[in-house]
């Protein structure tokens, strides 16, 4: 099928199998490898993207479902002020260890702070519960998101 959609602000048109996972379209057809495969079943969040601004696991989304939609990946986010703030916060808080979960977590944090600029710790933990991390135990990640929230005047 012919698929027309928007990736990171730019139009994309390609020929693909309708049930090809969005994750594979992004990684293999478009070379956007920031979204990762950690489980293939919507459990770990390493494949997180924004679909029309909402957090989604791209391993669960068939290509045919994204016709006309806007997909934002970490590659699309990384030139924004919001991303730079999140990256600074993650690094300052020591929240990046092996890094495999990090792009997905940054997207989840971005999705949270956009809707709720000043969440408390509980709300942060809830918002991140679909992103698994095995290295950090989450504490420094939560700290990073709270830091980005506190320092985000005018950004969120």
């Amino acid at each position: 099928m012919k698929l027309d959609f928007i990736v990171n602000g730019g139009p994309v048109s390609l020929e693909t199998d309708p049930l090809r996972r969005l994750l594979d379209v992004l990684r293999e057809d478009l070379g956007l490898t920031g979204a990762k495969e950690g489980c293939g079943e919507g459990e770990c969040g390493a494949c997180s993207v924004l679909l029309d601004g909402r957090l989604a696991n791209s391993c669960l989304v068939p290509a045919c479902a994204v016709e006309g939609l806007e997909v934002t990946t970490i590659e699309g986010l990384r030139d924004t002020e919001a991303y730079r703030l999140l990256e600074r916060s993650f690094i300052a808080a020591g929240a990046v260890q092996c890094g495999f979960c990090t792009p997905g977590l940054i997207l989840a944090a971005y999705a949270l702070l956009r809707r709720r600029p000043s969440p408390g710790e509980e709300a942060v933990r809830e918002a991140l519960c679909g992103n698994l991390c095995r290295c950090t135990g989450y504490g420094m990640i939560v700290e990073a998101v709270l830091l980005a929230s506190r320092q985000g005047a005018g950004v969120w």
Partner: protein
Amino acid sequence: MVGFYRPRSLEEALSIRSQTGAIPLAGGTDLMVQHRMGAGVPASFPAPALLIARLEELRLLGREGSDLRLGAACTLAELLEHPLVPGALKAALAEMASPAVRNLATLGGNICNASPAADTLPFLYAAGALVELRSLSGKRTLPITELITAPGRTILRDDELLAAVLLPELPTSAFFYRKVGTRRANALAKLSFLGLASISAGRIRELRCAFGAVAPTVVRRPQLEAVLIGKRLAEVEGLVPKILQGYGALIRPIDDQRSNARYRHTVALRLLERFLRGLFRAPEEGRP
């Protein structure tokens, strides 16, 4: 062979469904996992996919007379954000999967997937929800209890689509809900319990109890509820053993990779007992 259909209306969707037996695909959060083929390989459905996520007729959410219509293609996130959705349903939705999955997963998908552990079902059974099934020949409305017959099995015909859930007005907004998952978030239920009760002038006016993940389908038994309805609160304590025994016979959980039958059975009844004792605020049960 055509891999998918993108109908522009419910009518068109029904027409395609009746002609081809295409598989309704909304959020895909169950189907894309069940039919996955690994990295780089498209999912393999046994029939073409019928994309219904964007059909407006399946996404209506609002009052219809005294009922509340919940469109089958409403996502769990949308239901969580909507002011008309009852608190008891939101309690179940809030503990389902993760924020990202809730942005895709739909009410209709959760119902039609018909897992014994489906989290929306105990509420829908307790609420006496009806399901509206549409086909080219018209519509039929049934109690949800008739829709699901066994794990993964519904009586949805090959030419039908689940269009909406119709929720009658609830007798009360007070509820007791516990889901025991494999961890605190992003977890499947080992078991769950929902209790609704309406009390006035010292009597139980209405009582609903539903258990999830402890039998092939949700356990609800109006005959047992009727034992307490109309009773004064002071009488409830004496009836608790009978109620527990009644449900004890109906709850038939299994051993599986998440938990075991003994635990599920015991804890389900403990939750029920807590709910019932909460009605007349009995003192805490003792220690081991």
